[in-house]
């Protein structure tokens, strides 16, 4: 039976949201403000969906819902890859 640790996923997505926030505030032009705003909006939608799944408001043990949960993970991968600041060498 599939189990999902929503707590971990929520923490990860929230952290990604923080990365987008940082990019918005950064002096360097990471991406245009409109793109970053759109990412925030998408992140908010994902957050709402994760909330619904984690609280049982939406049945997540369906093909579509599972696919969406995977897409959210992909979103996090993308944000972490592209927006995470490089550690100094």
């Amino acid at each position, binding site marked *: 039976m599939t189990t999902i640790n*929503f*707590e971990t996923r*929520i*923490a990860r*997505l*929230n952290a990604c*949201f*923080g990365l987008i*926030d940082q*990019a918005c505030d950064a002096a360097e032009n*990471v*991406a*245009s403000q409109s*793109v970053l705003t*759109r*990412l*925030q*909006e*998408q*992140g*908010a*939608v*994902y*957050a*709402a*969906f*994760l*909330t*619904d799944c*984690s*609280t*049982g*408001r*939406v*049945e997540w043990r*369906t093909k*579509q*819902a599972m*696919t*969406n949960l995977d*897409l*959210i993970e*992909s*979103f996090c991968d*993308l944000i972490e890859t*592209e*927006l995470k600041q490089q550690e100094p060498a």
Partner: protein
Amino acid sequence: MKNAQKLETTAHGLFANFCNNLAQIDLRTAIAVPAVIGVVTAMYGIGLEVHGQSQLLQEGGALAVRAYKASMQVAPVDSILEYSKLAFEGKLKSFGGNAQGVGVTLTYLGPAVAAATVTLARGFGKVKDFLSEKFWQANAKQLDDDLFYAPERVISSLHNSTINANHKHHGVPLLSVALSNNNLDLAKALIDAGANVNAYADRPAIERGMAPIHFARSVAAVELLARAQAHIDAPHKQVDHAWAMRGETALHSASLNHSREGLALAEALIRAGADTKLPFANREYQYDRESITPINDRVVRGGLSIEERLAKTQVVFGDQKTLGATVTSIFAGSMALQAVDDRKGPSFYAEGRERGLPGQDGDEPTSGLRMR
């Protein structure tokens, strides 16, 4: 970022797939209003064409459903997927999609957004803040009214987490707005809700660069900020307008306020630990001997030398000659002036000036303040 284009395109693709899947999920089984309905609808105007509408209504989101239906009449589309795509591409002018549309949407969908914000899972603090900001940006007019005429509504919004304590209203932190209105109930509620007690205003021009302490209008306000460990000597950060006060602290301002209220405020600030010897950081605007002349003039015209008055009030004059004016010197001047005002009233100056009288000794300062 290494590849902004890749970021945008990939994120777009992920979200389009997400919307596609979401439209196929049967929300009839949802046991309560899914947060995703409120957020999706508000963010993109993507109404969910599902039977969940009745549940939205039950939860008080009638406006959301009404707005959704209205938008569908204006821009009918064949499927939720098509609708989602149009919204995502910014082509739904009536509902979401473009910036104006999002504003309209948020205005009409307040209940849905508020519900979604409240119902978001714990751990989504940053997301909640974002949604809250979106909502209040779109409802700035409502917030204008509430802050001035119904602050209890703002307090209520703080309690149910539908407004962020650190929200900046037209660029001014809510805490500073509350302090400028001397609404201490709201200020306290904001502090209790986690407002940054040192947040600077970003705009408009007049308020930009001011910290909450600069907005304190009463002794109680100063005491409230001091209890919250605000930076009492926070410098004014304004740099670029005509009456630039860069470096000015709240005590500088209060000391220059030649009134009982100004002096009471200065006393409260000093009690709270304000530095009485802090010079202006802005050398171009420092209160040197020349700048302070108006105070000197008035004291002298009243028949008192500032040194005499200072001696009587046991104020250390500070190192005015080397550093420019310090708060002490400004404050001393104000206090001396106040003492004369209290004793003789405005006519005293004119009388002294006309007669060329020297100071009338024996005047004791009426202020009880003792400074080091």
